[in-house]
């Protein structure tokens, strides 16, 4: 057998991987997830707090809007878990954006509910849940990054200590 090697050099391989590593794709995925989730909560809150009996067509429109937002949220979630790699530092940034988006959504929903006088209990509970979930993600992202940095320091300490492979 003649000596053969990969047709693609390592550099070419990295170039081919570039599209899935581009920052724009990551931002798009995070934006799709957040906009989808925020949209779902907001439209559902509007629907819920709509005063008086609604005609069938309005119900249908609200339902369609909710499904549409939910579909975007699912698409963003699928991108982030299956298609776009979110590294530790990206995760920290994404989690903070998520927290800001959840606080804004919770605030908006609460304002809408207060203006319409439909009771603040449920909107506050849902908003709170959203913010709590975002907070958990922030804490986890920071913890993961800190753990990686700790291990990095341990390993670089070892290497400079003369244990390099």
């Amino acid at each position, binding site marked *: 057998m003649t000596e053969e090697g*990969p047709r693609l050099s*390592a550099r070419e391989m990295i170039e*081919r*991987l570039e599209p899935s590593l581009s920052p724009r794709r990551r931002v798009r995925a995070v934006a799709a997830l957040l906009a989808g989730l925020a949209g779902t909560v907001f439209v559902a809150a509007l629907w819920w707090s709509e005063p008086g009996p609604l005609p069938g067509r309005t119900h249908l429109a609200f339902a369609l809007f909710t499904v549409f937002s939910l579909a975007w949220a699912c698409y963003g979630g699928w991108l982030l878990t*299956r298609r776009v*790699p979110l590294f*530790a530092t990206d995760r920290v940034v994404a989690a903070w954006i998520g927290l800001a988006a959840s606080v804004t959504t919770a605030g908006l929903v609460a304002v809408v509910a207060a203006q319409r006088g439909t009771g603040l209990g449920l909107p506050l509970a849902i908003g709170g849940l959203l913010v709590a979930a975002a907070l958990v993600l922030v804490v986890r992202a920071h913890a993961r990054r800190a753990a*990686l940095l700790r291990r*990095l320091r341990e*390993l670089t300490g070892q290497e400079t200590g003369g244990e390099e492979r």
Partner: protein
Amino acid sequence: MTDELLVIRAQLGERAALAELVARWQEPVWTYVRRMLDAERADDVTQEIWLAVVRGLPRLREPARFVPWLFTIARRSVTDRLRGQYARELEARAAGEVVAEDPVEAMVDRAELVNALAGLPVLEREILVLFYLEDLSVEDCAQICRIPAGTVKSRLNRARRLLRAHLEEKGYRP
């Protein structure tokens, strides 16, 4: 710099570390794929493997176990292509595979091995490539192929027997 250090830096989001990791492991991954598949598919499958690696890297929990993880992904892509062949061979020997306890001890010359590999059944070929060409330990091979270490050893024994028969058939005498 160790693989673990590179993996951690890549997981933190350092692009240069990821590039270095690809540069370091692209050829071994390609070698494994090429020994298992024809030249036509080797490059495409290698690219598919690296895409899966990049996507999965943020979730890798044990950076020190990068290499077995990498070859597990590579093996998944290869088995997808050879599904029929794997299934037939596994079925054929479901009854007969015995667990060997003896330590692996055989010297096989790399060049001859590469030449003779193409003629072996996939299960034996795979284990020889991982163990001899990629220099992985029996434990790593077991993790990658998802079989007990004893089965790795017995497959290695059988693979060496087949290889010897194959080489002798071609007129080579050790």
